[in-house]
């Protein structure tokens, strides 16, 4: 295990505006865990680079591994990138609802922070058939690739504005 300290991990999902890094630096955060962000791997490729440039260690997990961290009671707080806010929901990076529900079950705070990505609701199905440019999936199947999802405000502890 990388860590066994209870409630020690800050978990990120998405690519955040640069001002988010200032928050982490101000809090003297040295390490975060980040979801890879299928299908485009923007968590792995873009956010990790931003973190490393700011001397914050990035630990990558696949999008299906957050549950394990919650189960082990390792997660301290969750940050999710978002596009816009409506009356009842916040439009978040896909995977935000999973993290929010898990956080609710484990009494972990969820913060949302503006995304630096352009708003795009759905990707081409073929984007899920390959990984980093290499075909992975069986042929002749369908794909469904939503990129954003509404997270009800009841799951969110704090909505941050730039």
């Amino acid at each position: 295990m990388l860590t066994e300290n209870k409630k020690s991990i800050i978990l990120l999902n998405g690519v955040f505006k640069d001002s988010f890094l200032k928050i982490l630096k101000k809090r003297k955060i040295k390490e975060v865990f980040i979801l890879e962000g299928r299908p485009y791997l923007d968590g792995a490729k873009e956010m990790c680079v931003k973190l490393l440039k700011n001397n914050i260690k990035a630990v990558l997990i696949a999008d299906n591994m957050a549950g394990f961290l919650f189960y082990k009671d390792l997660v301290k707080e969750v940050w999710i990138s978002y596009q816009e806010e409506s009356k009842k929901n916040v439009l978040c990076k896909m995977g935000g609802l999973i993290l929010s529900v898990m956080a609710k079950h484990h009494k972990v705070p969820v913060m949302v922070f503006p995304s630096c990505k352009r708003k795009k609701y759905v990707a081409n199905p073929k984007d899920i058939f390959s990984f980093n440019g290499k075909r992975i999936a069986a042929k002749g199947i369908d794909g469904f690739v939503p990129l954003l999802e509404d997270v009800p405000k009841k799951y969110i502890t704090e909505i941050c504005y730039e």
Partner: protein
Amino acid sequence: MKESPLFWPAFLKKDVLFVLDETLIPEKVKYIQVKTPSQAVKVIKTMKTRAFGQFLVVLSTFLLVLKDKNIKSDKALVKKFFDVAHALNKSRPTFPFSEVTGMILGWAQKAQKENKDLRLSLQKSIEGFLFGIRGRRLERVQKLADTIKKHKVILTHCNVSGELAMAAQICKSAGKNISFFATETRPYFQGSRLTAWELKKAGVPVTLVADNAVATLMRDKIIDAVVVGSDRSCANGDFANKIGTLQIAVLAKEFDVPFYVLTQPSNKVKNGGDIPIEIRDENELLKVRGKRFAPKGVKGFYPGFDVVPHKFITKAIAINVN
């Protein structure tokens, strides 16, 4: 009903154990030839086979040992059985290898005590057990079909070793049109490669989604049930399965979606907290087909399995152990 190659992915032919290389599907259906116990351990460690395939490899490896003419005495044979059991038990920590090998060692000791022809007795016991397990899995396929026929669109995660595709065929033959969503199941893509492939081959509609899309599918009522397999069960009903299963189970509870799991009941482990979880090499996460995609300097963390508490299960579809 057409049987998926994943339903019985390892078999013995003469003195060779043929193990389906699940990492090559869907590009190739190719079997690895295993001739020694150390080769058997290697196919397990490197995840060439997994889930039920591991179970078959364990049992068949002992059949391979029985065919070894260099082992002359019963005493040497039993010693070899213990050595092989030890090597298999430590190959991967989460799957209950010791429960399977312990059963076989028990047969060996009993046969020895009763002065039976050891090789013949063990061969009969192992082959008989394999025959029985095949029948019981086919029964479970029927139970699964009876369960899923009430639903229209089902989400599944990882791969249920052929049983889901076969149950879907039963439903299709009965005029029930069920379709599936399969998660891609990072980092080994068992959903993209195995589940999507076998469902497509079975003529059943399947749509692939990223692992991060499952909450939306449930909240928006796009799916109306979840089916997963299990690698290990506990006395209290908790189970271990592929990483990603826990968050699917929690979401199913949150959004009132029935959550079904195929299980092999066991009372050897009291509850899920006692199951050792395998942490695998970070490179298996950070690289795909040998090529690293994560920027240099990024670390990775790869737990192989989740433990799912029994409170999240709507119904366990158990294999008959009697």
